[in-house]
């Protein structure tokens, strides 16, 4: 197949998967819409859908629709942690390591960065940098557990990383409710972060500050480039991808499979931790999470949408953040529960990952390309006075 057709096919296929998911969503919205009779329900569902699809860009009020920068900035800000978890999952899944620890990883990263922001005074410029790096390193060290167990003993990294998610959550909850809690407050939270540790908005105006669109966004984009270069332009990145494609072949061609298995998970942990740390210092004044944030699961969807290619991660993250914002708006203005996002996410995920989805169409395209090639060759050989292949 020609490259142009390949890209066209991928786009059509992705578009259809999203369309199916939106159809399912529409059906669910219709069912959950308030109103008596089909007509009223239709109207309510239409309103809800409008909020879902164009709400993240436009404010719809009595005096018409108007573009709103604040909502778009919200969407961009929401991409910060999920770009990191998306990259983290990309690296781990590329090596065929189904480590699902990005979820706990981003919580642990947020916790470590938050604690450094509370207890370790430093100069303004380096404080957030040190805190975020420490967060990354802490999670990388924790990810050594499933990674080494997998590499040395063949224990399933999937089960171990899932168990670690729970363990991380409970231990953080324990520390937060006992030793590190700010007992003067009604809810469970840490003492406030030092001013020096906070990550500021890119532009200091009301829109960017309100949306918490911080420098973390720029860092996330830089991380995308670095990870892409690492995966496609370095020896280690090549080994990670090769082991994902064919582990035995990589082993017999002399790659250190165990080391790469560990490396991919440690790197994935580092990225998840950095993402959690940046999110915490950019968005919150104190640490107050009491449950897993869900960034890890979104990260998995993003990695699948991006086909494990780091360069497409921001696009996929934008898409997910846009949908999620749309669902939030729908919950606020149309009364449809925001958890609809989980169902949409699941359906898109299923169709995107389905190899046979539209395989027949793909087959047709391949045949068409081959026939065209044959025709061209025949025409060429006729010109030169040769025989014709039929």
């Amino acid at each position, binding site marked *: 197949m020609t490259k142009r057709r390949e890209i066209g096919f991928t786009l059509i296929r992705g578009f259809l998967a999203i369309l199916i998911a939106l159809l399912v969503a529409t059906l669910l919205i219709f069912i959950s819409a308030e109103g008596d009779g089909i007509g009223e329900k239709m109207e309510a569902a239409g309103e809800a859908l409008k909020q879902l699809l164009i709400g993240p860009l436009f404010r719809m009020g009595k005096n018409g629709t108007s573009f709103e920068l604040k909502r778009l900035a919200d969407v961009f800000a929401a991409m910060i942690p999920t770009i990191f978890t998306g990259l983290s999952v990309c690296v781990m899944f590329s090596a065929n390591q189904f480590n699902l620890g990005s979820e706990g990883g981003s919580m642990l990263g947020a916790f470590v960065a938050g604690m450094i922001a509370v207890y370790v005074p430093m100069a303004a410029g380096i404080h957030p940098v040190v805190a975020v790096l420490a967060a990354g390193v802490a999670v990388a060290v924790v990810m050594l557990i499933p990674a080494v167990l997998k590499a040395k*003993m063949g224990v399933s990294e999937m089960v171990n990383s899932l168990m670690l998610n*729970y363990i991380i959550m409970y231990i953080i909850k324990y520390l937060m*409710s006992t030793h590190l809690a700010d007992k003067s407050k009604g809810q469970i939270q840490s003492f406030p972060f030092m001013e020096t540790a906070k990550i500021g908005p890119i532009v200091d105006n009301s829109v960017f500050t309100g949306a918490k669109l911080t420098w973390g966004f720029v860092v996330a984009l830089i991380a995308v480039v670095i990870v892409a270069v690492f995966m496609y332009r370095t020896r280690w990145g090549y080994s990670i991808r090769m082991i994902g494609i064919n582990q035995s072949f990589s082993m017999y061609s002399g790659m250190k499979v165990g080391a790469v298995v560990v490396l991919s998970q440690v790197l994935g942990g580092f990225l998840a931790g950095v993402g959690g740390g940046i999110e915490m210092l950019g968005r919150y004044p104190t640490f107050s999470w009491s449950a897993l944030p869900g960034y890890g699961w979104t990260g998995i969807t993003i990695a699948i949408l991006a086909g494990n290619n780091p360069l497409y991660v921001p696009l996929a993250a934008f898409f997910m953040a846009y949908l999620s914002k749309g669902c939030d708006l729908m919950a606020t203005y149309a009364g449809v529960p925001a958890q609809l996002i*989980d*169902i949409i996410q699941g359906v898109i995920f299923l169709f995107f*990952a389905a190899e*046979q989805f539209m395989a027949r169409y793909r087959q047709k395209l391949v045949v068409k390309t081959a026939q065209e090639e044959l025709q061209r060759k025949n025409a060429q050989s006729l010109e030169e006075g040769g025989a014709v292949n039929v």
Partner: protein
Amino acid sequence: MSNFVSMLLTPEFFFSILRISAPIIFATLAAIVVEKAGFCNIGIEGLMMFSALSGSLVSYYAGSWFWGLLAALVVGVLMSLIMGFFAFQMKTDIVLVGIAINMMGSGGTLFLCKVITNITEGRAMASTTGLITKDLCIPDITIPLVNKIPFVGQVLSGHNLLTYLAFLLCLLTSIMLYKTSLGLNIRAVGENPNAASSVGVSVLKIKYIAMGFSGLMSGFGGAFMSMAYAQGWSLDMVAGRGFIALAAQAMGNGECLGGMLSSLVFGFAQALGIKFSAIGLDSNLASPIPYAVTIIGLVIFAVSRNRKELKKRSSAALEKKASSQA
């Protein structure tokens, strides 16, 4: 310390181990059968969530636990068949199908609960705990005669119907796998699908059956969670039991008896955690105990398996050497 031990040696404690193990046993059976058919279903967690919700809702609306249980089973089987469709026919990686189901099982059940019942607790949460009363739960059963035996009677009698069923199903599943032609086919498909298909076994059909079976078991597990373990469904109530079951399956070496024993180990760990928090340990420190035990258990299992393998290989090498010398 001795005080604590004497607290553990009560019939209530052993009773609670059996009760806590039951959903893990169901989930482990679900994991065992698909593993025998040659693949891994990590969506058990999500299947249990959906079954738990539908079970509690239907039992409320129908006014009877029986219909609730039936609904939980039907939903479990249907969802698992959908998973099978994506995995076998659409060629989605089965791990990814499982992740998708788990994703939907967490937030999606909350969405459905809110939409169907119109109940909201605060702004974000919802649950069906207010709807389910004691008579809508699956009943407990007192075994006559046995309940008169001191200690043992208190441990064994008075359990939920599904708790007994869990242990019974261990036996039945084992018989199904090793004494019936269906079981033989399932194992054959898992061992070597090409060989199975060459003797006329429909690999696809067997895989669907295995998947449906795991959905059925997840349905029992889900129903137990929302209609016996707790009264009513609440968000993320399955709390990783579907994942622990994957570990129990591995530790039990893929056999029903082993899986049951490792489920009991996890049940013990959790019951111990509950006791710890009863004597004043922070519940946030007690709650991760079963998860930590899972990791440790997997490691111990892997070490012993690797050692066995090494022994087997070295003894095979020795034999070879001996035979070549002779």
